[in-house]
């Protein structure tokens, strides 16, 4: 899906847990997620902390979308 949407000229950020798979399939902007059963959340932390965590991931993804990349880039900072 990532590749097909990009082929249509629209940049994509792939938020995913298993970054190596995303690299293998050819995503260009990759944002690491939390875990496979809960990519965008963490049931182990409080609701407040989880909201903060989700916000961070979304903001990182938006930032990645704005960033010019030269080849596959993992936004893991």
């Amino acid at each position, binding site marked *: 899906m990532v590749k097909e949407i990009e082929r249509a000229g629209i940049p994509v950020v792939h938020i995913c847990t298993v970054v190596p798979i995303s690299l293998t399939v050819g995503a260009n902007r990759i944002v690491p997620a939390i875990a*496979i059963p809960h990519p965008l959340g963490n049931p182990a932390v409080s609701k407040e902390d989880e909201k903060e965590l989700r916000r961070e991931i979304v903001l990182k993804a938006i930032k990645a979308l704005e960033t010019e990349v030269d080849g596959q880039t993992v936004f893991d900072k």
Partner: protein
Amino acid sequence: MRLELGNIFIKDLQFGEATKVENGVLYVNKKELLEAVGGDHRLVSIEVDIAKPGEETRIMPVKDVIEPRVKVEGPGGIFPGFISKVDVVGSGKTHVLKGAAVVTAGKIVGFQEGIIDMSGTGADYTPFSKTNNLVLVCTPTEHLQQHEHEQAVRMVGLKAAAYIGEAGRNVNPDEVKIYETLPILEGIKKYPDLPKVAYVYMLQTQGLLHDTYVYGVDAKRIVPTLIYPTEVMDGAILSGNCVSACDKNPTYNHLNNPIIEDLYERHGKDYNFVGVIITNENVTLADKERSSNWTAKLAEFLGLDAVIISEEGFGNPDTDLMMNCKKISAKGIKTVLVTDEYAGRDGASQSLADADKTADAVVTAGNANEVIQLPSMKKVIGYLDPADTIAGGFDGSLRPDGSIMAELQVITGATSEIGFNKLSATEY
């Protein structure tokens, strides 16, 4: 560590007055068995049935298959950490009721439990159509949570296998096999000229009903470590895995791991089989990185020349497999991978979710997406209705006449990634 496995060949299974083995026939006293396995308030009933090779019987949904064994000499008992105390197993003498199996079935726990057909097309795809199966159909209390349900049924299966295994304690085995692994330094001294080979044994540990236990420990909580191969033969590793019927390792397969047996077969002739590294398949990238770093570190530490790596399950564990391969290869150690494929119904799609150029020696156990037709059976032990919802099934899989059309992944043990079946795939 040296283990003597005494195989007692079981040619038939019947209910009887006493639980015993006589002339290759295993008799089971149903009442005594139920007393041995019962008592869990989470289960409202346990029914016992028998399914033999060639019968027109379908068992589903299948949770686990377990081989009855009993420890007759040496420390510890079978299934340490669950049935027996946590002593170190794998030495002394163990008797095996070869040809018999305990199968746990009943109301579905999750969504990927399997089918065992005792005859017809389905029987060709599962190794458990060739065993005399004692089937326990467990019915949970209403609203029982899935993980509690899985645990209750798992314990019933293990208790049943241990109870039946006892019947072999005082029987003279028909065949005796000896397996021995020396402590590393002695082992290397003994065969200095043979290539040092180990087995990297990946255990499914994604949680949410994908669990494997080592001496009672949930393996998602371990870091990779070493285990003597004979410990596995006494049930040190067992399945709590309700997921991925075709390519999970039922407890039976752990006990009879063909990679371990074949490495022993060629030990001292072609290789020096040094031992087993167990590792897990967890759900965060950090866990995957840490565990694969650790397997590579252990492989280097042991001074290996080559490893065989087997996967359990599919999808994101393909990445664990590739990380293990890549990092061990980077140490200058040769790798062979054993996996299966999800290459689509026509076999044309990419087989694994991940790939790496160092994965240049790979054994496949078949394409789990292949569509198969299973004829209706005269007798069903368990329930047919999950056929549409288990992984590999789809709307309309179960037909009104009781026949099933589904992907191969519905069959228990069909694409075993430790090679406990005869299936493979080829390109033509």
